[in-house]
Protein backbone atom coordinates (compact mmCIF):
# COMPACT_ATOMS: atom_id res chain seq x y z
CA UNK A 1 0.00 0.00 0.00
CA UNK A 2 1.41 3.39 -0.95
CA UNK A 3 1.58 5.88 1.86
CA UNK A 4 1.11 8.91 -0.38
CA UNK A 5 -2.11 7.61 -1.83
CA UNK A 6 -3.40 6.96 1.64
CA UNK A 7 -2.72 10.53 2.76
CA UNK A 8 -4.47 12.15 -0.20
CA UNK A 9 -7.44 9.95 0.41
CA UNK A 10 -7.52 10.97 4.07
CA UNK A 11 -7.33 14.67 3.27
CA UNK A 12 -10.13 14.51 0.75
CA UNK A 13 -12.29 12.90 3.35
CA UNK A 14 -11.34 15.16 6.21
CA UNK A 15 -14.12 17.74 5.73
CA UNK A 16 -16.92 15.26 5.29
CA UNK A 17 -15.66 13.05 8.06
CA UNK A 18 -15.50 15.91 10.51
CA UNK A 19 -19.00 16.99 9.62
CA UNK A 20 -20.25 13.45 10.11
CA UNK A 21 -18.69 13.10 13.55
CA UNK A 22 -19.83 16.55 14.61
CA UNK A 23 -23.34 15.68 13.47
CA UNK A 24 -23.21 12.40 15.42
CA UNK A 25 -22.01 14.11 18.60
CA UNK A 26 -24.54 16.91 18.03
CA UNK A 27 -27.46 14.50 17.70
CA UNK A 28 -26.39 12.68 20.86
CA UNK A 29 -26.09 15.98 22.74
CA UNK A 30 -29.41 17.36 21.53
CA UNK A 31 -31.14 14.05 22.24
CA UNK A 32 -29.77 13.83 25.76
CA UNK A 33 -30.70 17.45 26.47
CA UNK A 34 -34.26 17.08 25.17
CA UNK A 35 -34.66 13.83 27.08
CA UNK A 36 -33.88 15.66 30.32
CA UNK A 37 -36.95 17.89 30.09
CA UNK A 38 -39.59 15.32 31.15
CA UNK A 39 -37.51 14.50 34.22
CA UNK A 40 -37.39 18.16 35.19
CA UNK A 41 -40.96 19.05 34.25
CA UNK A 42 -42.39 16.22 36.35
CA UNK A 43 -41.47 18.29 39.42
CA UNK A 44 -43.82 21.10 38.32
CA UNK A 45 -47.35 21.08 39.76
CA UNK A 46 -49.34 18.13 38.39
CA UNK A 47 -52.75 18.45 36.73
CA UNK A 48 -54.63 17.63 39.93
CA UNK A 49 -52.71 20.31 41.82
CA UNK A 50 -53.35 22.86 39.08
CA UNK A 51 -57.06 21.98 39.08
CA UNK A 52 -57.19 23.24 42.66
CA UNK A 53 -55.24 26.39 41.83
CA UNK A 54 -58.41 28.44 41.39
CA UNK A 55 -61.23 28.40 43.90
CA UNK A 56 -64.59 30.11 43.93
CA UNK A 57 -65.81 31.45 47.25
CA UNK A 58 -69.31 32.55 48.17
CA UNK A 59 -68.88 35.61 50.39
CA UNK A 60 -72.55 36.42 50.96
CA UNK A 61 -72.53 34.91 54.44
CA UNK A 62 -69.73 37.10 55.82
CA UNK A 63 -71.34 39.76 57.99
CA UNK A 64 -70.06 43.29 58.29
CA UNK A 65 -66.97 43.43 60.52
CA UNK A 66 -66.38 39.71 60.13
CA UNK A 67 -63.67 37.84 58.29
CA UNK A 68 -63.07 34.29 57.15
CA UNK A 69 -60.02 32.25 56.34
CA UNK A 70 -59.99 29.82 53.44
CA UNK A 71 -57.17 27.70 52.10
CA UNK A 72 -55.90 28.44 48.61
CA UNK A 73 -52.80 26.81 47.11
CA UNK A 74 -51.86 25.62 50.58
CA UNK A 75 -51.90 29.14 52.02
CA UNK A 76 -54.49 30.99 54.14
CA UNK A 77 -56.57 33.67 52.41
CA UNK A 78 -58.24 36.31 54.56
CA UNK A 79 -61.54 37.68 53.28
CA UNK A 80 -62.76 40.59 55.38
CA UNK A 81 -66.03 42.44 55.21
CA UNK A 82 -64.89 45.85 56.45
CA UNK A 83 -67.01 48.33 58.36
CA UNK A 84 -67.40 51.89 57.11
CA UNK A 85 -65.10 53.08 59.92
CA UNK A 86 -62.38 50.63 58.90
CA UNK A 87 -62.63 51.72 55.28
CA UNK A 88 -62.45 55.37 56.26
CA UNK A 89 -59.43 54.70 58.42
CA UNK A 90 -57.67 52.81 55.64
CA UNK A 91 -58.41 55.51 53.08
CA UNK A 92 -57.47 58.32 55.42
CA UNK A 93 -53.85 57.35 55.96
CA UNK A 94 -51.30 59.61 54.29
CA UNK A 95 -49.00 57.76 51.90
CA UNK A 96 -45.99 59.30 53.62
CA UNK A 97 -46.89 57.42 56.82
CA UNK A 98 -46.58 54.09 55.08
CA UNK A 99 -43.58 51.76 54.82
CA UNK A 100 -44.77 50.11 51.61
CA UNK A 101 -46.62 52.92 49.86
CA UNK A 102 -49.98 51.80 48.45
CA UNK A 103 -53.39 53.47 48.60
CA UNK A 104 -56.36 51.48 49.84
CA UNK A 105 -57.94 51.79 46.41
CA UNK A 106 -55.06 49.86 44.88
CA UNK A 107 -55.71 46.98 47.26
CA UNK A 108 -59.39 46.28 46.59
CA UNK A 109 -60.92 44.85 43.41
CA UNK A 110 -64.64 45.53 43.83
CA UNK A 111 -66.64 47.35 46.45
CA UNK A 112 -64.37 48.90 49.06
CA UNK A 113 -65.91 46.80 51.84
CA UNK A 114 -64.32 43.59 50.54
CA UNK A 115 -60.65 43.05 51.37
CA UNK A 116 -58.98 39.84 50.17
CA UNK A 117 -55.42 39.11 51.33
CA UNK A 118 -52.86 36.32 51.37
CA UNK A 119 -52.56 35.63 55.08
CA UNK A 120 -48.84 35.12 55.40
CA UNK A 121 -46.70 37.74 57.10
CA UNK A 122 -44.23 39.23 54.64
CA UNK A 123 -41.49 38.97 57.26
CA UNK A 124 -40.97 35.23 57.70
CA UNK A 125 -44.23 33.64 56.66
CA UNK A 126 -46.22 33.29 59.91
CA UNK A 127 -50.01 33.67 59.84
CA UNK A 128 -50.99 36.99 61.48
CA UNK A 129 -53.82 37.19 64.04
CA UNK A 130 -56.85 39.41 63.54
CA UNK A 131 -59.30 37.36 61.51
CA UNK A 132 -61.19 35.77 64.40
CA UNK A 133 -63.31 38.14 66.47
CA UNK A 134 -61.32 37.70 69.70
CA UNK A 135 -57.89 38.08 68.10
CA UNK A 136 -55.37 40.75 68.84
CA UNK A 137 -55.65 43.03 65.82
CA UNK A 138 -52.54 45.02 66.57
CA UNK A 139 -52.08 48.74 67.08
CA UNK A 140 -53.68 49.64 63.75
CA UNK A 141 -56.83 47.53 63.99
CA UNK A 142 -55.97 45.17 61.17
CA UNK A 143 -53.72 42.22 61.82
CA UNK A 144 -50.92 41.45 64.22
CA UNK A 145 -48.22 38.90 63.63
CA UNK A 146 -47.17 37.39 66.97
CA UNK A 147 -43.95 35.87 65.66
CA UNK A 148 -41.93 39.07 65.50
CA UNK A 149 -44.51 41.77 66.18
CA UNK A 150 -45.55 43.14 62.81
CA UNK A 151 -48.66 45.34 62.85
CA UNK A 152 -50.89 45.65 59.78
CA UNK A 153 -53.69 48.19 59.32
CA UNK A 154 -57.26 47.73 58.12
CA UNK A 155 -56.03 47.60 54.55
CA UNK A 156 -53.46 44.91 55.43
CA UNK A 157 -50.57 47.36 55.04
CA UNK A 158 -47.49 47.06 57.19
CA UNK A 159 -47.29 49.88 59.70
CA UNK A 160 -44.93 48.75 62.41
CA UNK A 161 -42.54 45.86 62.97
CA UNK A 162 -39.97 43.97 60.92
CA UNK A 163 -42.12 42.98 57.92
CA UNK A 164 -40.96 44.83 54.78
CA UNK A 165 -44.12 44.71 52.68
CA UNK A 166 -47.91 44.89 52.88
CA UNK A 167 -49.89 41.63 53.02
CA UNK A 168 -50.14 40.48 49.41
CA UNK A 169 -53.36 40.70 47.43
CA UNK A 170 -53.96 37.46 45.48
CA UNK A 171 -55.17 37.44 41.90
CA UNK A 172 -58.94 37.38 42.17
CA UNK A 173 -62.04 38.70 40.50
CA UNK A 174 -65.72 39.10 41.30
CA UNK A 175 -67.77 36.60 39.28
CA UNK A 176 -70.99 38.04 40.77
CA UNK A 177 -71.49 40.49 43.63
CA UNK A 178 -71.18 37.69 46.18
CA UNK A 179 -68.95 35.17 44.41
CA UNK A 180 -65.24 35.67 43.99
CA UNK A 181 -62.81 33.56 42.02
CA UNK A 182 -59.32 33.41 43.47
CA UNK A 183 -56.44 32.41 41.19
Amino acid at each position, binding site marked *: MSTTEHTTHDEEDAGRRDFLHVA*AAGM*AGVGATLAMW*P*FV*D*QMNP*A*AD*TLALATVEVDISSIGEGEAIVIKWRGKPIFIRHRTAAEIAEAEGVALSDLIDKETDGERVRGEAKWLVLVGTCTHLGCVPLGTKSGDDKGEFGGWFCPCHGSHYDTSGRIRKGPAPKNLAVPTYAFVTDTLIKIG
Partner: protein
Amino acid sequence: MAEWETIAPKNKALGWFEERLPILSLVHNVVGPGTPTPRNLNYWWNFGSLAGLMLVVQIISGIVLAMHYTPDTALAFDSVERITRDVNYGWLIRPMHANGASFFFIAVYIHILRGLYYGSYKAPREVLWMLGLVIFLLMMATAFMGYVLPWGQMSFWGATVITNLFSAIPVVGDSIVTLLWGGFSVDNPTLNRFFSLHFLLPFVILGVVILHIWAKKVSDSGNPLGIEVKSGADQIPFHPFYTIKDAFGVGVFFTIFATFIFFMPDAMGHPDNFIPADSLVTPDSIVPEWYFLPFYAILRSITFDIGIPGTDIVFIPAKLLGVIAMFASILLLFALPWLDTSKVRSARFRPVYKILFWVFVAVMVLLTIVGGKKPEGIWPVLGLLGTAYYFAHFLIFLPLLGKYEKTLPLPESISNPVIKAAE
Protein backbone atom coordinates in the same frame (compact mmCIF):
# COMPACT_ATOMS: atom_id res chain seq x y z
CA MET B 1 -3.58 -5.79 32.03
CA ALA B 2 -2.53 -2.90 29.88
CA GLU B 3 -0.21 -0.31 31.29
CA TRP B 4 -1.85 2.52 33.23
CA GLU B 5 -1.32 5.79 31.39
CA THR B 6 -1.38 9.11 33.19
CA ILE B 7 -3.12 12.07 31.62
CA ALA B 8 -1.63 15.54 32.11
CA PRO B 9 -4.13 18.13 30.83
CA LYS B 10 -2.63 21.31 29.34
CA ASN B 11 -5.23 23.46 31.05
CA LYS B 12 -3.78 24.56 34.39
CA ALA B 13 -6.93 24.28 36.48
CA LEU B 14 -7.72 20.91 34.99
CA GLY B 15 -4.16 19.76 35.60
CA TRP B 16 -4.36 20.90 39.22
CA PHE B 17 -7.54 18.91 39.70
CA GLU B 18 -6.27 15.86 37.83
CA GLU B 19 -3.20 15.64 40.07
CA ARG B 20 -5.46 15.43 43.08
CA LEU B 21 -8.21 13.25 41.65
CA PRO B 22 -7.13 11.56 38.40
CA ILE B 23 -10.62 11.10 37.01
CA LEU B 24 -9.61 11.83 33.40
CA SER B 25 -6.92 9.17 33.66
CA LEU B 26 -9.52 6.75 34.97
CA VAL B 27 -11.83 7.34 32.01
CA HIS B 28 -8.85 7.28 29.63
CA ASN B 29 -7.68 3.93 30.91
CA VAL B 30 -11.03 2.20 31.36
CA VAL B 31 -13.19 3.26 28.40
CA GLY B 32 -10.91 5.71 26.62
CA PRO B 33 -8.04 5.80 24.15
CA GLY B 34 -5.80 4.19 26.76
CA THR B 35 -7.73 0.95 26.77
CA PRO B 36 -6.33 -1.50 24.21
CA THR B 37 -9.22 -3.76 23.20
CA PRO B 38 -9.27 -6.79 20.87
CA ARG B 39 -9.94 -5.52 17.36
CA ASN B 40 -12.36 -8.31 16.47
CA LEU B 41 -15.26 -7.79 18.92
CA ASN B 42 -18.59 -8.32 17.15
CA TYR B 43 -22.00 -6.81 17.87
CA TRP B 44 -22.71 -9.30 20.63
CA TRP B 45 -20.18 -7.34 22.69
CA ASN B 46 -22.52 -4.32 22.57
CA PHE B 47 -24.87 -5.68 25.19
CA GLY B 48 -22.63 -4.97 28.17
CA SER B 49 -22.75 -1.23 27.58
CA LEU B 50 -26.46 -1.48 26.81
CA ALA B 51 -27.12 -3.22 30.12
CA GLY B 52 -25.12 -0.53 31.92
CA LEU B 53 -27.12 2.19 30.21
CA MET B 54 -30.42 0.50 31.09
CA LEU B 55 -29.34 0.50 34.75
CA VAL B 56 -28.88 4.27 34.48
CA VAL B 57 -32.29 4.67 32.78
CA GLN B 58 -33.92 2.61 35.55
CA ILE B 59 -32.25 4.54 38.34
CA ILE B 60 -33.16 7.94 36.89
CA SER B 61 -36.76 7.07 36.03
CA GLY B 62 -37.10 5.21 39.34
CA ILE B 63 -35.98 8.16 41.45
CA VAL B 64 -38.49 10.33 39.62
CA LEU B 65 -41.32 7.84 40.18
CA ALA B 66 -40.43 7.62 43.87
CA MET B 67 -41.11 11.37 44.11
CA HIS B 68 -44.78 10.66 43.36
CA TYR B 69 -45.37 7.10 44.54
CA THR B 70 -47.00 6.33 47.91
CA PRO B 71 -46.04 2.99 49.51
CA ASP B 72 -49.30 2.37 51.32
CA THR B 73 -51.68 -0.44 50.42
CA ALA B 74 -54.62 1.96 50.41
CA LEU B 75 -52.92 4.53 48.18
CA ALA B 76 -50.29 2.75 46.10
CA PHE B 77 -52.52 1.85 43.14
CA ASP B 78 -54.10 5.32 43.11
CA SER B 79 -50.72 7.02 43.30
CA VAL B 80 -49.50 5.07 40.27
CA GLU B 81 -52.66 6.05 38.37
CA ARG B 82 -52.10 9.65 39.40
CA ILE B 83 -48.57 9.45 37.98
CA THR B 84 -49.82 8.35 34.57
CA ARG B 85 -52.80 10.70 34.55
CA ASP B 86 -51.81 13.93 36.29
CA VAL B 87 -48.05 14.19 36.80
CA ASN B 88 -46.29 16.03 33.97
CA TYR B 89 -44.82 13.40 31.63
CA GLY B 90 -45.78 10.70 34.13
CA TRP B 91 -47.42 8.88 31.20
CA LEU B 92 -43.95 8.67 29.66
CA ILE B 93 -41.81 7.97 32.72
CA ARG B 94 -43.89 5.15 34.16
CA PRO B 95 -43.95 2.98 30.99
CA MET B 96 -40.28 3.84 30.56
CA HIS B 97 -39.55 2.29 33.96
CA ALA B 98 -41.84 -0.72 33.49
CA ASN B 99 -40.61 -1.53 29.98
CA GLY B 100 -37.11 -0.50 30.99
CA ALA B 101 -36.99 -3.48 33.35
CA SER B 102 -37.78 -5.78 30.43
CA PHE B 103 -35.20 -4.18 28.20
CA PHE B 104 -32.62 -4.33 31.00
CA PHE B 105 -33.23 -8.06 31.19
CA ILE B 106 -33.11 -8.43 27.38
CA ALA B 107 -29.68 -6.76 27.34
CA VAL B 108 -28.45 -8.81 30.29
CA TYR B 109 -29.73 -12.13 28.93
CA ILE B 110 -28.04 -11.54 25.58
CA HIS B 111 -24.89 -10.47 27.46
CA ILE B 112 -24.95 -13.73 29.47
CA LEU B 113 -25.64 -15.88 26.40
CA ARG B 114 -22.73 -14.19 24.63
CA GLY B 115 -20.54 -15.16 27.58
CA LEU B 116 -21.75 -18.74 27.37
CA TYR B 117 -21.17 -18.99 23.61
CA TYR B 118 -17.69 -17.50 23.60
CA GLY B 119 -16.55 -19.05 26.88
CA SER B 120 -16.08 -15.65 28.52
CA TYR B 121 -16.29 -17.25 31.99
CA LYS B 122 -13.07 -19.23 31.63
CA ALA B 123 -9.74 -18.43 33.26
CA PRO B 124 -8.66 -15.75 33.90
CA ARG B 125 -12.17 -14.25 33.91
CA GLU B 126 -13.89 -16.38 36.57
CA VAL B 127 -14.34 -13.51 39.03
CA LEU B 128 -15.60 -11.23 36.26
CA TRP B 129 -18.22 -13.88 35.46
CA MET B 130 -19.22 -14.39 39.07
CA LEU B 131 -19.62 -10.66 39.67
CA GLY B 132 -21.93 -10.66 36.66
CA LEU B 133 -24.00 -13.40 38.28
CA VAL B 134 -24.21 -11.37 41.49
CA ILE B 135 -25.56 -8.47 39.43
CA PHE B 136 -28.08 -10.84 37.82
CA LEU B 137 -29.30 -12.11 41.22
CA LEU B 138 -29.63 -8.57 42.57
CA MET B 139 -31.54 -7.57 39.44
CA MET B 140 -33.99 -10.41 39.93
CA ALA B 141 -34.62 -9.39 43.54
CA THR B 142 -35.00 -5.74 42.54
CA ALA B 143 -37.34 -6.47 39.63
CA PHE B 144 -39.48 -8.78 41.75
CA MET B 145 -39.94 -6.19 44.49
CA GLY B 146 -40.52 -3.42 41.96
CA TYR B 147 -43.33 -5.38 40.37
CA VAL B 148 -45.11 -5.51 43.74
CA LEU B 149 -45.17 -1.73 44.17
CA PRO B 150 -48.12 -0.83 41.85
CA TRP B 151 -50.21 -3.10 44.11
CA GLY B 152 -52.28 -4.63 41.33
CA GLN B 153 -53.62 -8.17 41.43
CA MET B 154 -50.52 -9.66 39.84
CA SER B 155 -48.28 -7.63 42.16
CA PHE B 156 -50.01 -8.96 45.22
CA TRP B 157 -50.32 -12.58 44.15
CA GLY B 158 -46.85 -12.71 42.67
CA ALA B 159 -45.50 -11.48 45.98
CA THR B 160 -47.59 -14.02 47.87
CA VAL B 161 -46.48 -16.96 45.74
CA ILE B 162 -42.78 -16.07 45.61
CA THR B 163 -42.43 -15.27 49.31
CA ASN B 164 -44.24 -18.53 50.08
CA LEU B 165 -41.36 -20.35 48.37
CA PHE B 166 -39.38 -19.88 51.54
CA SER B 167 -41.98 -21.81 53.51
CA ALA B 168 -40.59 -24.94 51.81
CA ILE B 169 -37.44 -24.67 53.92
CA PRO B 170 -37.64 -27.31 56.66
CA VAL B 171 -38.17 -26.25 60.29
CA VAL B 172 -37.61 -22.48 59.94
CA GLY B 173 -39.51 -21.91 56.66
CA ASP B 174 -42.69 -20.49 58.16
CA SER B 175 -40.79 -18.20 60.51
CA ILE B 176 -38.79 -16.85 57.58
CA VAL B 177 -41.95 -16.12 55.61
CA THR B 178 -43.50 -14.30 58.57
CA LEU B 179 -40.29 -12.31 58.88
CA LEU B 180 -40.33 -11.39 55.18
CA TRP B 181 -43.97 -10.30 55.37
CA GLY B 182 -43.78 -8.49 58.68
CA GLY B 183 -47.19 -10.01 59.38
CA PHE B 184 -49.29 -13.00 58.52
CA SER B 185 -49.83 -12.23 54.86
CA VAL B 186 -48.45 -9.87 52.23
CA ASP B 187 -49.68 -6.52 53.51
CA ASN B 188 -48.71 -2.95 54.28
CA PRO B 189 -45.46 -3.79 56.12
CA THR B 190 -44.43 -5.97 53.17
CA LEU B 191 -45.12 -3.20 50.67
CA ASN B 192 -43.13 -0.69 52.73
CA ARG B 193 -40.04 -2.86 53.04
CA PHE B 194 -40.20 -3.82 49.36
CA PHE B 195 -40.26 -0.14 48.44
CA SER B 196 -37.29 0.57 50.67
CA LEU B 197 -35.27 -2.33 49.27
CA HIS B 198 -36.34 -1.65 45.70
CA PHE B 199 -34.88 1.82 46.12
CA LEU B 200 -31.68 0.55 47.75
CA LEU B 201 -30.70 -2.44 45.60
CA PRO B 202 -30.09 -0.60 42.31
CA PHE B 203 -27.30 1.31 44.00
CA VAL B 204 -25.84 -1.95 45.26
CA ILE B 205 -26.03 -3.19 41.66
CA LEU B 206 -24.23 -0.05 40.55
CA GLY B 207 -21.45 -0.83 43.02
CA VAL B 208 -21.09 -4.39 41.76
CA VAL B 209 -21.13 -3.09 38.17
CA ILE B 210 -18.09 -0.98 39.04
CA LEU B 211 -16.35 -4.11 40.38
CA HIS B 212 -17.43 -5.97 37.24
CA ILE B 213 -15.82 -3.30 35.01
CA TRP B 214 -12.73 -3.26 37.21
CA ALA B 215 -12.37 -7.04 36.83
CA LYS B 216 -12.79 -6.59 33.07
CA LYS B 217 -10.02 -4.01 33.06
CA VAL B 218 -7.72 -6.42 34.91
CA SER B 219 -8.39 -9.47 32.74
CA ASP B 220 -9.08 -7.56 29.50
CA SER B 221 -12.02 -8.23 27.21
CA GLY B 222 -12.38 -11.67 25.72
CA ASN B 223 -13.06 -11.91 22.01
CA PRO B 224 -14.96 -14.07 19.52
CA LEU B 225 -11.93 -16.21 18.74
CA GLY B 226 -11.35 -16.94 22.40
CA ILE B 227 -7.57 -16.70 22.03
CA GLU B 228 -5.36 -14.38 24.04
CA VAL B 229 -4.07 -11.10 22.66
CA LYS B 230 -0.53 -11.77 21.33
CA SER B 231 0.69 -8.34 20.25
CA GLY B 232 -0.33 -4.74 19.76
CA ALA B 233 -1.48 -5.66 16.27
CA ASP B 234 -4.36 -7.56 17.84
CA GLN B 235 -5.69 -4.49 19.58
CA ILE B 236 -7.26 -1.14 18.92
CA PRO B 237 -7.98 1.70 21.37
CA PHE B 238 -11.42 1.50 23.00
CA HIS B 239 -12.05 5.12 22.06
CA PRO B 240 -13.07 6.03 19.39
CA PHE B 241 -13.64 2.60 17.90
CA TYR B 242 -15.80 0.92 20.52
CA THR B 243 -17.37 4.12 21.84
CA ILE B 244 -18.89 4.84 18.43
CA LYS B 245 -19.85 1.20 17.98
CA ASP B 246 -21.54 1.21 21.39
CA ALA B 247 -23.26 4.47 20.48
CA PHE B 248 -24.63 2.89 17.32
CA GLY B 249 -25.86 -0.06 19.38
CA VAL B 250 -27.57 2.35 21.78
CA GLY B 251 -29.28 4.01 18.82
CA VAL B 252 -30.72 0.72 17.58
CA PHE B 253 -31.65 -0.54 21.06
CA PHE B 254 -33.31 2.73 22.10
CA THR B 255 -35.32 2.90 18.89
CA ILE B 256 -36.83 -0.48 19.73
CA PHE B 257 -37.21 0.50 23.40
CA ALA B 258 -39.01 3.73 22.40
CA THR B 259 -41.32 1.78 20.09
CA PHE B 260 -42.49 -0.21 23.10
CA ILE B 261 -42.83 2.82 25.40
CA PHE B 262 -44.82 4.91 22.96
CA PHE B 263 -46.77 2.42 20.89
CA MET B 264 -47.23 -0.71 22.97
CA PRO B 265 -46.58 0.17 26.61
CA ASP B 266 -48.75 -2.68 27.91
CA ALA B 267 -47.41 -5.40 25.58
CA MET B 268 -45.09 -6.94 28.16
CA GLY B 269 -47.35 -6.34 31.15
CA HIS B 270 -50.29 -8.36 32.38
CA PRO B 271 -53.89 -7.06 32.21
CA ASP B 272 -54.58 -8.29 35.76
CA ASN B 273 -52.20 -5.70 37.15
CA PHE B 274 -54.73 -3.03 36.15
CA ILE B 275 -57.03 -4.52 38.80
CA PRO B 276 -56.25 -3.27 42.32
CA ALA B 277 -54.91 -5.95 44.68
CA ASP B 278 -57.60 -8.01 46.38
CA SER B 279 -56.47 -10.48 49.02
CA LEU B 280 -59.70 -12.46 48.71
CA VAL B 281 -59.66 -13.14 44.96
CA THR B 282 -56.83 -14.99 43.23
CA PRO B 283 -56.38 -14.36 39.48
CA ASP B 284 -56.99 -17.24 37.05
CA SER B 285 -53.33 -17.92 36.68
CA ILE B 286 -50.45 -16.20 38.38
CA VAL B 287 -47.75 -15.44 35.86
CA PRO B 288 -44.54 -13.64 36.68
CA GLU B 289 -42.96 -11.14 34.30
CA TRP B 290 -41.56 -12.82 31.19
CA TYR B 291 -37.95 -12.63 32.38
CA PHE B 292 -38.70 -14.92 35.33
CA LEU B 293 -40.65 -17.50 33.35
CA PRO B 294 -37.84 -20.05 32.70
CA PHE B 295 -37.00 -20.20 36.39
CA TYR B 296 -40.67 -20.29 37.32
CA ALA B 297 -41.04 -23.26 34.94
CA ILE B 298 -38.15 -25.05 36.66
CA LEU B 299 -39.80 -24.39 40.03
CA ARG B 300 -43.11 -25.87 38.91
CA SER B 301 -41.65 -28.78 36.95
CA ILE B 302 -40.85 -30.78 40.08
CA THR B 303 -44.05 -32.49 41.20
CA PHE B 304 -42.61 -35.60 42.83
CA ASP B 305 -41.15 -36.30 46.26
CA ILE B 306 -37.79 -37.94 46.77
CA GLY B 307 -38.01 -40.80 49.22
CA ILE B 308 -37.87 -44.57 49.44
CA PRO B 309 -40.18 -45.96 46.78
CA GLY B 310 -42.98 -48.11 48.08
CA THR B 311 -42.87 -46.56 51.54
CA ASP B 312 -44.18 -43.35 53.02
CA ILE B 313 -40.69 -42.15 53.81
CA VAL B 314 -40.00 -38.82 52.10
CA PHE B 315 -36.57 -37.20 52.27
CA ILE B 316 -37.31 -34.17 50.15
CA PRO B 317 -40.92 -33.17 49.46
CA ALA B 318 -41.78 -31.92 45.95
CA LYS B 319 -42.32 -28.33 47.11
CA LEU B 320 -38.86 -28.10 48.62
CA LEU B 321 -37.30 -29.90 45.68
CA GLY B 322 -38.80 -27.38 43.26
CA VAL B 323 -37.43 -24.49 45.27
CA ILE B 324 -34.02 -26.14 45.47
CA ALA B 325 -34.06 -26.75 41.71
CA MET B 326 -34.90 -23.12 40.98
CA PHE B 327 -32.18 -21.68 43.18
CA ALA B 328 -29.70 -24.35 42.07
CA SER B 329 -30.34 -23.53 38.42
CA ILE B 330 -28.85 -20.08 38.96
CA LEU B 331 -26.30 -20.90 41.65
CA LEU B 332 -24.69 -23.66 39.59
CA LEU B 333 -23.66 -20.97 37.10
CA PHE B 334 -21.11 -19.85 39.72
CA ALA B 335 -19.37 -23.21 39.24
CA LEU B 336 -19.48 -22.99 35.45
CA PRO B 337 -15.81 -21.98 35.02
CA TRP B 338 -14.89 -25.35 36.57
CA LEU B 339 -17.73 -27.43 35.17
CA ASP B 340 -16.66 -26.60 31.62
CA THR B 341 -13.38 -28.47 31.33
CA SER B 342 -12.58 -27.58 27.72
CA LYS B 343 -9.35 -25.70 27.06
CA VAL B 344 -10.92 -23.93 24.08
CA ARG B 345 -13.04 -20.91 24.89
CA SER B 346 -15.00 -19.98 21.79
CA ALA B 347 -17.83 -22.17 20.48
CA ARG B 348 -16.53 -21.36 17.00
CA PHE B 349 -13.91 -24.03 17.46
CA ARG B 350 -16.11 -26.41 19.43
CA PRO B 351 -18.47 -28.09 16.95
CA VAL B 352 -20.35 -30.18 19.52
CA TYR B 353 -20.61 -27.44 22.13
CA LYS B 354 -21.95 -25.11 19.45
CA ILE B 355 -24.88 -27.47 18.86
CA LEU B 356 -25.47 -27.92 22.59
CA PHE B 357 -25.42 -24.15 23.04
CA TRP B 358 -28.26 -23.67 20.57
CA VAL B 359 -30.14 -26.58 22.13
CA PHE B 360 -29.71 -24.78 25.46
CA VAL B 361 -31.11 -21.55 23.98
CA ALA B 362 -34.06 -23.48 22.53
CA VAL B 363 -34.66 -25.11 25.92
CA MET B 364 -34.65 -21.71 27.63
CA VAL B 365 -37.22 -20.43 25.12
CA LEU B 366 -39.27 -23.58 25.73
CA LEU B 367 -39.07 -23.09 29.51
CA THR B 368 -40.15 -19.47 29.04
CA ILE B 369 -43.24 -20.63 27.18
CA VAL B 370 -43.95 -23.40 29.71
CA GLY B 371 -43.63 -20.90 32.58
CA GLY B 372 -46.41 -18.80 31.05
CA LYS B 373 -48.84 -21.71 30.58
CA LYS B 374 -51.17 -23.27 33.07
CA PRO B 375 -49.66 -26.57 34.31
CA GLU B 376 -52.00 -28.84 32.37
CA GLY B 377 -51.76 -31.24 29.43
CA ILE B 378 -48.35 -31.50 27.79
CA TRP B 379 -46.81 -28.47 29.52
CA PRO B 380 -45.66 -30.04 32.82
CA VAL B 381 -43.99 -32.83 30.85
CA LEU B 382 -42.17 -30.35 28.62
CA GLY B 383 -41.24 -28.37 31.72
CA LEU B 384 -39.70 -31.42 33.35
CA LEU B 385 -37.80 -32.34 30.18
CA GLY B 386 -36.52 -28.78 29.84
CA THR B 387 -35.43 -28.74 33.47
CA ALA B 388 -33.68 -32.07 33.03
CA TYR B 389 -31.80 -30.76 30.01
CA TYR B 390 -30.87 -27.56 31.84
CA PHE B 391 -29.11 -29.46 34.60
CA ALA B 392 -27.67 -32.11 32.27
CA HIS B 393 -26.21 -29.39 30.07
CA PHE B 394 -24.15 -27.93 32.88
CA LEU B 395 -23.54 -30.93 35.11
CA ILE B 396 -23.03 -33.75 32.58
CA PHE B 397 -22.45 -32.52 29.03
CA LEU B 398 -20.04 -29.67 29.72
CA PRO B 399 -17.69 -31.64 32.01
CA LEU B 400 -17.61 -34.58 29.57
CA LEU B 401 -17.30 -32.45 26.45
CA GLY B 402 -13.95 -31.08 27.62
CA LYS B 403 -12.59 -34.58 27.61
CA TYR B 404 -14.09 -36.02 24.44
CA GLU B 405 -14.84 -33.13 22.08
CA LYS B 406 -12.52 -32.83 19.09
CA THR B 407 -12.02 -29.09 18.77
CA LEU B 408 -11.07 -27.28 15.58
CA PRO B 409 -7.57 -25.83 15.18
CA LEU B 410 -7.23 -22.29 16.57
CA PRO B 411 -5.97 -19.30 14.59
CA GLU B 412 -2.44 -18.04 15.19
CA SER B 413 -3.55 -14.63 16.42
CA ILE B 414 -6.42 -12.16 16.19
CA SER B 415 -4.65 -9.99 13.60
CA ASN B 416 -3.39 -12.99 11.66
CA PRO B 417 -6.28 -15.43 11.54
CA VAL B 418 -4.29 -18.08 9.77
CA ILE B 419 -5.28 -21.44 11.12
CA LYS B 420 -2.51 -23.17 12.99
CA ALA B 421 -1.67 -26.50 11.54
CA ALA B 422 -3.88 -29.08 13.15
CA GLU B 423 -2.11 -30.51 16.15
